[in-house]
């Protein structure tokens, strides 16, 4: 069983949103909601500046708080470690939306909760997620964490620095951020509150 994971090298990501648009098209994500979005954050003062471009989506947590709270089993974890939603069982109660610390889930106008699937339908055919495929800077790596030859395992090994979002919550994300531009790691909202 593969253990799918993704890594994004922030030293290369330019925040172009090709990934976000590809996701929108591939998955017919309706207007007004997103499976994938880019947070762009300015840090520092002229001329000592840094900008962090940080794409965000479901992290397919190994310990996903969104799954146990689901009353119908619509939210579940596959053997490959994907966290998915079965629309046929979802009652749109929002418990999983409340439980996700990353705002990764949204209510689909079809009356169910939806989010990034790591493009499970493409993985089934041996492909990679649409966002990974298109990324012009090639800063996204995907694959099996347990296979040392997989792009994601290699990227993690070569990275100077590896971060995950909100590690203190113990969610064990499988979306890793590599080489964050700030020495302090991933930026936090409180750092940019001055405006």
């Amino acid at each position: 069983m593969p253990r799918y994971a993704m890594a994004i090298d922030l030293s290369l990501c330019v925040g172009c949103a090709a990934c976000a648009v590809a996701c929108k098209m591939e998955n017919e994500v309706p207007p007004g909601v997103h499976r994938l979005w880019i947070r762009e954050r300015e840090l520092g003062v002229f001329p000592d500046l840094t900008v962090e471009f940080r794409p965000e989506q479901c992290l397919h947590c190994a310990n996903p708080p969104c799954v146990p709270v689901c009353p119908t089993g619509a939210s579940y974890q596959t053997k490959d470690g994907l966290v998915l939603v079965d629309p046929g069982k979802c009652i749109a109660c929002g418990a999983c939306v409340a439980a996700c610390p990353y705002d990764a889930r949204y209510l689909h106008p079809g009356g169910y909760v939806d989010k990034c699937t790591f493009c499970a339908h493409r993985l089934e055919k041996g492909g990679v997620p649409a966002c990974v495929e298109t990324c012009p800077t090639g800063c996204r790596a995907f694959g099996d964490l347990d296979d040392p030859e997989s792009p994601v395992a290699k990227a993690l090994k070569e990275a100077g620095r590896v971060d995950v979002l909100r590690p203190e919550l113990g969610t064990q994300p499988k979306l890793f951020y590599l080489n964050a531009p700030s020495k302090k790691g991933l930026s936090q909202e409180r750092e940019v509150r001055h405006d």
Partner: protein
Amino acid sequence: MERRTFLKLTALSAGALALTQGGPAKARKTPWYAQEVRTVYQICEGCFWRCGIRAHAVGNRVYKVEGYAENPKSRGRLCPRGQGAPQTTYDPDRLKRPLIRLEGTERGEGKYRVATWEEALDYVAEKMLAIRERYGPEAMAFFGHGTGDFWFVDYLPAAWGSPNAAKPSVSICTAPREVAAQWIFGRPIGGHEPIDWENARYIVLIGHHIGEDTHNTQLQDFALALKRGARLVVVDPRFSTAAAKAHLWLPIKPGTDTALLLAWIHVLIYEDLYDKDYVARYTVGFEELKAHVKGFTPEWAEKETEIPAETIRRVAREMAAHKPRAVLPPGRHTVWYGDDTYRMMALYYVNVLLGNYGRPGGFYIAQSPYLEKYPTPPLPLEPAAGGCAGPSGGDHEPEGFRPRADKGRFFARTTAIQELIEPMLTGKPYPIRGLIAYGINLFHSIPNVPRTKEALKGLDLYVTIDVLPQEHVMWADVILPEATYLERYDDLVAVAHKTPFLQLRVPAHEPLFDTKPGWWIARELGLRLGLEAYFPWKTIEEYLDTRLQSIGLDLETMKSMGTLVQKGKPWLEDWEKEGRLPFGTPSGKIELYCQAFKAAGHQPLPVYTPPEEPPPGHYRLLYGRSPVHTFARTQNNWVLMEMDPENEVWIHREEAQKLGLKNGDYAYLINQDGVKEGPVRVKATERIRKDCVYLVHGFGHKAPLMRVAHGRGASDSYLQTRYRLDPISGGAGLRVNFVRLEKAERPHLPALSSLARRPLEERRM
């Protein structure tokens, strides 16, 4: 308890069993990829870079496009605009039927009736023939841009006999860099910047905001260079995305780059850091250059550029330490201040001193692929519009034909588009009475919009061929709706490249509504103009097949491969092996001193002119790209608009504070001539100098029928009521406008998502 075991327990009743089969109700419509998908090779029309793509369609709808590995432009990846571009085909606001302006209405009122193609084409042909009768064929101007522009700015005008054909992609884009390259290297830069990014070790970007400028291949290469450890210096008054990736950011005073480049030349020469062998073997004019830059010390440049002399020196030394794998890419949009050819000359000279032209890690030598034209009788004129790539053949005219109305004043062998507006107004040097605009945005691309509007009002005929009801489109006498890229064939696209290649566009489905492909429109018009000899073919398939036969291929084969890659000769070495050099200059070498410029009354060496200072209370207006938008053509595409729904005016935080503006407030921009734009959102930021403001180009649409785009943000183009002509290249320097800010109310606009949910059939016209 395990979900599944519990299920088994509960699924005992027959009802429950039935439920487990399909779910209580069909929760979700079948996704496109689970249906019968048809795939064709296509070419992206999200911008003019034209990446090779594959389009996946179900029925009459393309759901997804992808790059493919065999195509040297996309290499399997696409930029955001390319990914989102299909939405334009399914935009309810798109042009759907031929339209003729209502009798008795003025241009600009936007009142139209639906017409048949017959009627619309007859109308255009009749008026064109009348213009020719009265004023001669050159009184018809042809403006165009895009993959289909060949028919309208190259072929048709040359067959018809007008040299007044032009594209915005030269004199409002690349003219200075092309002219400088042509006269220094004897070769153009071309549509695809020939930089060997992957081997470069030290890269200096002058402006050139890669990352926001998302030309796909270039962005891929840029990232590859970074990944391989290249050091990056970015010279930009604004902390661009590229600057965020740089090891060093030089926040230069706008308009002073030539001073910086001259100082670098000074250091390279006077500190003896340049590549002496290279200069000796491949160049002429070094001594003149050396004498010229004697006084341009870093200390001198510091006063102009506000970059410390020490930093200027350090960068020059670092460049030299990495030569020949240090490179200063030319940038693309180079019409900045009106003295831009000089800046580009200086930039090339730095490169030459680093010995990188024709060497790995520097500039490679791009070559065009081999392909024959379709055999037609020789055209009376040679096309004058050119590509991005500068020279076409059209700078001389055969007996009986008038010269271009931009008076042949410029070194660009292609027409300066903005210089064709004046003759429409003044009739000098001769009248231009008619205009066909194919895929060019007259009000968003050409500076001095009031003048353009005035000129359009006076024409005898104004025709647009477009896909959207853009503001300038809704001024035309006749509007011919083109089928979008996904719905049509076009001519083969031949790309000069490290590995030259050809690519093909195949329609993914029939044109929606009553729209037609450009080739069909051009041919039908040609037949009505008595040019049938130049359109001997009947179908585009026949045309393409014949051309492909010339290289031993045929259309069916090409349809199954999309791209054909040929071999190039990228390095000086390759040429020297054949006993020659690639330089097409009079001396056959790289010219560090340009006799031709001197002979025409310009300077043979790059000169620096300090920029005009902003008037009190004003800021210099700079502009650039949004990564998810292309010029002014994508703002009605809701998928892309969701990512970046309005442009913002960037202003330094302290300046904003002085004006009482906070981040997220709205403001009007008012330029030196009193033109008011906006309201536009304020981005109060540390990421820009205090003497300038910045806007992303392409917003501020005023076309009421472009419902998504309408009223969002501000137009840089409307604020560019003046431009400074580069007398050498004919380029229109656009960064010579100044604005002040005035607080405004937040505009009330319909929500994007509700606009996005409109049905495709919503509008009949």
